[in-house]
């Protein structure tokens, strides 16, 4: 393999990993605190992408300063996260915390189905596309290949975001409370923690991550119906590899999946998705709890 190809693969892989991280860190956060795999996560991600693109098109349409489009991306993510998060958690998930896991899966799956079509109802089935935020920052070249500074900014944002989350969990009072809820809900309640509130906040935070991931990836792709399910499956693969509920695991998982996918895209394009699933299956066979996960005790 020559150096040039290697550079391309590493760059592409890292950029893809950055987006994957934003997407999957929310999923792992929600799973860590609520112990629910949120199948609708990909739906929120796609919703964020739609809303951000829509707002950006609107603001560029009235001839505003193009740099405002970054603000619009952010606003789209926040709007979707703040709407979807509390509604899904308070109205639906709260009823089924005590239920079996398969009921929880089915419930989030039905929410996923609803979200997936809601986007089509609101924005139609035609692709939405806005490239200004992407082209505005200009380009640079490595080894004759052009990259956009926007892609580098993506990597930066996701590193900063990941660091902020790790700090929040390990370095603040809120983080300590969350860890206590993760370890023992009843005991936390007994010492005066409002567990329901922690659930709502954590879920909303997770939803915000998903929406932000969608909003930031939106300028680099055309937003079309149906990319939500790929997002859910990919995010699951990432956190299954990294260990469900682990922030560091999400980071490592994203890098592995991102690089593998880039490798496959450039060397064996037919196998781009297969490689990701194979990696997930391999990790699960060798280490069922994931690379950073903790083994679960079997309770009688």
């Amino acid at each position: 393999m020559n150096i040039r190809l290697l550079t391309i693969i590493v760059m592409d892989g890292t950029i893809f990993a950055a987006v994957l991280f934003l997407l999957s860190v929310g999923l792992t956060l929600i799973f860590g605190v609520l112990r629910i795999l949120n199948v609708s996560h990909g739906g929120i991600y796609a919703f964020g992408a739609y809303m951000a693109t829509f707002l950006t098109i609107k603001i560029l349409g009235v001839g505003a300063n193009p740099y405002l489009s970054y603000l619009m991306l952010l606003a789209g993510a926040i709007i979707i996260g703040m709407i979807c998060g509390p509604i899904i958690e308070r109205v639906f998930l709260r009823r089924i915390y005590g239920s079996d896991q398969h009921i929880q899966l089915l419930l989030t799956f039905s929410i996923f189905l609803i979200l997936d079509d809601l986007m089509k109802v609101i924005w139609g089935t035609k692709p939405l596309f806005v490239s200004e935020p992407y082209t505005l920052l200009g380009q640079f070249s490595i080894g004759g290949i052009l990259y956009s500074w926007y892609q580098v900014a993506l990597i930066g944002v996701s590193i900063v975001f990941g660091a902020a989350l790790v700090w929040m969990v390990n370095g603040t009072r809120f983080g300590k409370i969350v860890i206590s809820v993760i370890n023992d809900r009843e005991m936390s309640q007994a010492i005066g923690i409002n567990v329901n509130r922690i659930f709502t906040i954590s879920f909303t935070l997770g939803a915000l991550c998903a929406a932000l991931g969608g909003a930031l990836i939106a300028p680099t792709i055309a937003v079309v119906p149906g990319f939500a399910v790929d997002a859910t499956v990919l995010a699951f693969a990432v956190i299954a590899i990294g260990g469900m509920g682990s922030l560091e695991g999400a980071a490592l998982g994203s890098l592995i999946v991102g690089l593998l996918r880039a490798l496959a895209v450039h060397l064996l394009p037919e196998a781009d998705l297969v490689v990701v699933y194979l990696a997930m299956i391999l990790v699960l066979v060798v280490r069922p709890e994931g690379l950073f996960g903790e083994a679960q005790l079997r309770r009688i």
Partner: protein
Amino acid sequence: MEQSRRIPVGPILSAVALLAVPLVLPDWMKFIVTLALSKFLAVLAVALFLRAGMVTFGHAMFYAVGAYVVGFSNKLFAYHGILVLLVIGALVGAGVAALIGLIMARYREVFFAMLNLAFSMMLYGAFLKLYWVTGGTDGLGTGLPTFLGYTPARDNLRDVQYYATLVVAGLVIYGVYRFLASPLGYYLKARADNEIRIEYSGESVQRVIYATYVLSGALAAMGGVLAAFTVGHIVPEYAFWIQSGDFVFVAILGGFESVAGPLVGAIAFEFIRTYASKYFPNEWQMVLGIIMLVIILFRPGGIWAIYESLVAKVRRPKGEVAHG
């Protein structure tokens, strides 16, 4: 005791109704019921796992395996014997399930659901991208089926096909019923309550799940064979996650506690879909999602549980105890 002397009115009536379908219903409805009966086999496969408290978002892969057996048989050998292909399809489906099951039997809950999804999406990708073998998005034709060497004329093909499907579905209902009444079937149900106690009683949960997985692979593949001949055309979407999701939905809609629930669900689903896709072509999934949400939150037993509670209400005024 009371139970055994009572004539089973419900089952007899529904059997008569199913037998009478070709005589009364117009052609397009015959088609819908035939398709529903075919898919019912795959739904039954998903329902087996729901009984055990496990969800699979990937059983469309076995359904697709069965359908592609028909497609390849047409493409490579121009052979259309539905009975032989059913057996081959079931064997191939069971074979694939026996392989994947080696991995799958070790996982539960979230992992089981999502690993199945991953495998089915891999298969979907393969069907889509290996176009020189599978025809890619164009898919494969199936040709007209023959029944034990008999080739029906075009105008009674629908009827023959319907009865063939009905017979297969009837045999499968009996087979699955026997499976559920066997020790293995009871262990499967017990898993939903407590897995570790099963192992304390001397049975290996992995073995139970593995056996069920192989059976479910065969069932879904047979459904695929029948559905392929009913529709006459096969596309990679047979293995797509939406198809798997539909199977799960139907099992929830009909109710998975009995063998009859998925049957009722499958027929109801095909009719709902026919009308819903006419009136809400773009909101179809949303309709499904909302129905599923309501059932899960308020009526976890599905249509069948509603029916049973109605029957119980009708019978109680006769001065009987509810459970006979």
